[in-house]
C-alpha cells in the first residue's frame, strides 16, 4: 500500500528560472526505507521539503503536480497538519533545538504541546521516543549540553513523539562524527523495524546502500533511477549523473565480478565472500 505518492511533481523557487524539481514521479510503500542520493543542487533537500508541504507553503514559489503522504494531499493541508503524519529532520542538529525548553524531556514535549496532545498522553509518548533513540539517561540534561550525535537523535526523538507514519531525514549525519553517524543509522533501523516508513537523503552512500530497500537517484530535479541498491549500482551511467558509488561496488565492477543474479555486493562481508570464491 503506497504511503507516499508523488505524481509529476514540479517546483520552482521564487525569483528563479530553473525548475528545482522537474516532473518527479514515484511511490513508496509502507515500511520501506528509501535512500535519496544525488549531487548537491540535485533537488534532494527540496524533495524532502515537499514531503511535508514546506514546499510550497513555506517557500512559496511555483508548484505543480501532486504529493500525497499518508492520504493527505500536501497542497491542501497546512504544514502543521501534515507534520502530524510526516516528520522531517534537518541537517543541523543545533538549529532544531527550540531553545524554549530547559531539559531534553521537555524539549521532546514541545511538539506535543503545540499539537494539543492531552497531558496524560505525553509521558508515554516522550518515554517511548527517548528510549527508542537511546536518550533515556539524558532526560534531565539541558538540550544544549549534549554531543552533536545526541542532539541529532534528540531532534529525531522530538519528531518521533508526534508518532508520524513517515519520517523524512535530510542529510542527518553530515555534521556528525563516525560514532554519531552510527548512532543515527542505528536509530533509523530501529524505527524501520517498528513499521515507520523512512526517507533519508544522504551523501554517505556506503552506509545507505547497506540498509535501504530502494534508492532514489536524482539529478537536476529529475529521477535518474529508483531501484533496489543492488540493481541500481549496476548501472554504468551513475558517475556521469553525479551519483557516488560504494567502494565495494566500484571494485567489483572494475574486476567484472558479480553475484549469481547479476547484482553487486553492498557490504564488505558480501564482497569479501564473492571475491574469495571468484578466485577459488
Amino acid at each position, binding site marked *: 500500500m503506497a504511503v507516499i505518492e508523488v505524481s509529476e511533481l514540479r517546483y520552482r523557487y521564487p525569483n528563479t528560472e530553473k525548475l528545482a524539481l522537474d516532473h518527479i514521479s514515484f511511490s513508496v510503500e509502507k515500511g520501506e526505507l528509501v535512500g535519496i542520493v*544525488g*549531487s*548537491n*543542487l540535485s533537488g534532494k533537500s527540496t524533495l524532502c521539503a515537499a514531503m511535508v508541504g514546506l514546499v510550497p507553503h513555506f517557500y512559496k514559489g511555483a508548484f505543480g503536480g501532486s504529493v500525497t503522504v499518508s492520504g493527505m494531499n500536501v497542497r491542501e493541508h497546512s504544514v502543521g497538519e501534515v507534520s502530524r503524519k510526516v516528520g522531517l529532520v534537518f*541537517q543541523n542538529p543545533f538549529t532544531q533545538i527550540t531553545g524554549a525548553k530547559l531539559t531534553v524531556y521537555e524539549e521532546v514535549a514541545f511538539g506535543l504541546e503545540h499539537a494539543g496532545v492531552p497531558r496524560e498522553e505525553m509521558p508515554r509518548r516522550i518515554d517511548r521516543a527517548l528510549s527508542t533513540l537511546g536518550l533515556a539517561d539524558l532526560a534531565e540534561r539541558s538540550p544544549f549540553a549534549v*554531543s*552533536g*550525535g545526541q542532539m541529532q537523535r534528540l531532534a529525531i526523538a522530538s519528531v518521533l513523539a508526534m508518532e508520524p507514519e513517515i519520517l523524512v531525514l535530510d*542529510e542527518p549525519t*553530515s*555534521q*556528525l*562524527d*563516525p*560514532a*554519531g*553517524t552510527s548512532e543515527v543509522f542505528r536509530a533509523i533501523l530501529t524505527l524501520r523495524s517498528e513499521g515507520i516508513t523512512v526517507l533519508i537523503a544522504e*551523501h554517505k552512500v*556506503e552506509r545507505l546502500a547497506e540498509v535501504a530497500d530502494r534508492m532514489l537517484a536524482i539529478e537536476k530535479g529529475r529521477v535518474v533511477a529508483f531501484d533496489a541498491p543492488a540493481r541500481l549500482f549496476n548501472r554504468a551511467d551513475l*558517475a556521469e549523473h*553525479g*551519483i*557516488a558509488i*560504494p*567502494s*565495494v561496488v*566500484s*571494485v567489483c565492477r*572494475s*574486476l567484472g565480478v558479480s553475484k549469481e543474479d547479476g547484482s553487486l555486493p553492498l557490504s*564488505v*562481508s558480501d*564482497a*569479501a565472500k564473492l*571475491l*574469495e570464491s571468484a*578466485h577459488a
Partner: protein
Amino acid sequence: MPEISVRDLMFHYTEGVPVLRGISIDFSPGATAIVGQNGAGKSTFVRLLKGLLKPKSGSVTVNSIETADVTVATLSRTVGLVFQNPADQLFKSRVADEVMFGPQNLGYTSDEAQDLARHALERLGLGGVAHENPYDLGLAERKLVTVAGILAMGTEVVILDEPTIAQDVEGTRRLGKVVEDLTGEGKMVITITHDMDFVTRYFDRVVVMQQGVVHADGSAREVFAAHDILEKAGLEPPQVTRLGQALGMDQTILTTEEFVKTYQRKGR
C-alpha cells in the same frame, strides 16, 4: 619551507577541564589529516596552530616564531585556517569581493587581489558564481567559497576544518585536488576530517587524536592497519581498506584502484 613545532602543549577553556593534555608534534610541508571523535580536541588544536588561542603551557612555533608573541592577523600571512562553519566567516555580499577580502588585508593591490581571487575560485570550480551573493549558494558551495578565500591569501600553511562536510562527489574531488596542488607547491596542508576515503586518497600522514592527546601518528597505511587504536578512537578505516583486510591482503589498501591492482596481481 614552512615548519610548525609544537612542544608539550596544554590547553583548557575552563580551569580544571583540560582539552589538550600535552601534545608534542612537528609538521613539515606535505598533507596531514587529523582524525578523531568529536571532543578529541582537534578544532582546539588547529586554533592554537593559527594563534587564535594561546597555549596555557607549552609552545607552538611557526617558522621559528612563537604564536604567543604575535597577533593573529600577523600570523595570517603564514597560516590560513578555514573554519567549519561558513556563516562565521563570510563578510561580503559578492563571492568575488569575499575572496578578495583576505588578500586585501594582506596588502595586495585591488588588481592583484582580483587576480588571486579569480584564480582561487577557478580552482574550486566556482568561476561561474563570482558575482553571486554567497548566501544564495547552497551550503556546500558556500563552504568552497570559504576555502577559496584562504587559498587566495597564498599562505604557506593551509588548515581546513572539516571541509568535506555536505560535499558531493565533485566537491570532494575538487578539495582533494586543491590539497594535492598545495603539497605539490611545497606547502603544508593540515585537515580535520571524518571522511576516511578523503584521507586515504589525498593524505600521506594521519594523526589520530583522542581526549586531548595524540594516539597515533604515521602514514595512512600504518594508521589504518592499527585496529585497536582506531577502535579506541571510535574510527573505522574506509570500506575498501576493510575489504582488503577481510581478504587477508598483506598491504593495507588505501584506494579502489590499489585494491583492483593488488587483487589482480596476487589473485587474493
